[in-house]
């Protein structure tokens, strides 16, 4: 993406965020007897601040295109663009999947239950990242699964989701009662 295009989209995103947030402040912009500025005063100052700094940033970025500042805790390669040969369609899809698979896992968790879904997710995500050795796939999945269950179910008594789709709820509940 060109620098100018990036600057415009970045400024546009902040404009949308601040615009929507400012609009939402009218939902709680009621006068308060005990506080003159009301519940909307503080968020509005913050929103105005974001809009102001985003505007300055856009101007800065336009006037100052070549310089790359320091970003704490990130090494150079992390913030640089990736090499072009790394960008095929399958790579793009895989990259997209690195975000989509965890979201799908989270979407399915209250439906299929933590106990059935988690081993599938762990093995699936490892495969997505290139792990093909069966021993590593099975071993890691079992290890993470056992560790999570020991710490969170046995020790901390966390009521992890057991699902609500027919069948899944029963299997998850059976598993929980077996473990407990």
């Amino acid at each position, binding site marked *: 993406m060109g620098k100018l295009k990036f600057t415009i989209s970045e400024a546009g995103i902040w404009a949308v965020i601040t615009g929507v947030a400012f609009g939402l402040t009218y939902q709680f912009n009621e006068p*308060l007897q*005990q506080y003159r500025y009301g519940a909307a005063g503080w968020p509005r100052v913050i929103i105005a601040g974001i809009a102001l700094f985003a505007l300055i*940033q856009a101007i800065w970025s336009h006037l100052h295109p070549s310089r790359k500042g320091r970003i704490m805790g990130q090494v150079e390669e992390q*913030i640089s663009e990736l090499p072009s040969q790394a960008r095929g369609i399958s790579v793009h899809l895989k990259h997209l999947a690195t975000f989509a698979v965890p979201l799908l896992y989270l979407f399915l968790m209250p439906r299929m239950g933590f106990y059935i879904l988690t081993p599938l997710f762990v093995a699936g995500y490892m495969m997505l*990242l290139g792990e093909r050795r069966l021993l590593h796939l099975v071993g890691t999945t079992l*290890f993470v699964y056992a560790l999570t269950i020991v710490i969170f179910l046995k020790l901390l008594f966390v009521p*992890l989701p057991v699902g609500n789709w027919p069948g899944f709820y029963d299997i998850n509940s059976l598993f929980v009662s077996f473990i407990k």
Partner: protein
Amino acid sequence: MVELFFKGFILLATDPFAVFLFFAALIIGLFFAALPGINMVTLGAIILPFTAYLNPTHAIMIYGVIYVSGTYGGAVMAILFNIPGSAENAPTAFDGYPMTQQGKSGKAIGAAIVSSSLGGMVSAIVMMLAAPGIARWAIHAFGPPEMFSLIFFGLSIVAAVGAENLWKGWISVLLGLLLATIGTDPSGGLHRFAFGTYYLLAGIHFIPLILGFFAISEVFVQAEKMVTKTYRAPKVGIAFPSFMEFWRLKLAIVRSMILGFFAGVLPGIGATLAAFLSYNEAVRWSKHPERFGKGELEGVVASETANNAATGGAMIPLLALGLPGGAITAMMVSVFMIHGMDPGPLIMTRAQDLVWVLFVAMFIANLFIFLLGYIETKTIVNLLRIPFRILSPCIMILATVGAFALRNSLLDVWVMFLAGIAGYFLRRSGYSVPGIILGVILGGLGEAAFVKSMQMLHYDWFAFFGRPVCAVLLAAALLTLFVNVLKSAKQMASSQV
């Protein structure tokens, strides 16, 4: 004082059950703090009901030891995987993680151990010497206007470090402040940005945000490298920093101890702001500020000395005035109440044995961090030998369950994943993730302090400058802002020549 110290030591050392509890709290505190999403606060909450079965000295001692070991323990994951165990370890990741990527993980962890241990021990000594005096001063000198001024000063500093430029730093901090407004407003109890769902009425908890912005976004960054075949595994380094390396940083260590201790005394501010302030001062005083954020040992030392020095400071208002400054100290108040005791000025005389066992236990816990940490340096860095494609789902699962366990709500897990995706893009665009986190943590406190200040000062903004502490802090904040704007303008001018 020496007599009381030895009395406390003998009481602790001659009670086998107390010794057992001491070591259990030390090791479990270190372990819990190193797990993403689970920290010393979770551990403290879990064991709270069981403290009813212990005597009050044992119960309070456990919390003191957990506080010390947990504050250090969070640094390990921050250094190895860019996943701070808690907010106070966030600045440790600034330089600790780049050091890991350069194969200096042993040095970074070694520096964290020594500086945490030193910071904690010195603050424990000051705590023993000066608890009542300092507490009285801090509580009288720090009302809501001073608290607001301190938070404003802290945020003005944080905005200047961590982002690609000053403007992005400020946007990051303000975004954090905006996220902190979600929930119920502190003045009238009105619902803000809650979208009609009761899940958001209590606001967004900062733990899922920390997990998302640090742990999950780091997984996404590394996963991208794996699918594009550009991933390079970090080298494993087990070399411990030399004495001379620490000696060169003596001023930074002393400065961070002082900053950490005094920040720890202030309710609600504590270790997190201490670590950020100390990190910023290290950058400001350094002859080579350009090295920070790229693997500078001083960055790790400044942050870790300050956050552990804050643990001793936090005990002062608790024991001398009965005022907790954070979650762990609030749990300690609960322990006192469970046992029918009133924490406050009288506790120092009525329960002298308890107080001195606590002081001694915290001092010795800091000493043991050094010993255990040395062993840890030689062992835990080997986690880096595990391929990231195997580690990443483990991190995700632990983070998922950790976020869920906080309030048994999947909404927290959604918040974590969305923060992870946002964090991935914000980091790539040069925004400061720690700035957002500190904005979220201090936002609620800052607004509450501002509301109370305005009511106290009858909406007279200039009255802030009539209070000496406020005037100094606000002047320092405005000066910081002015200097940074000036620096940015110079940078812009030089790039156009």
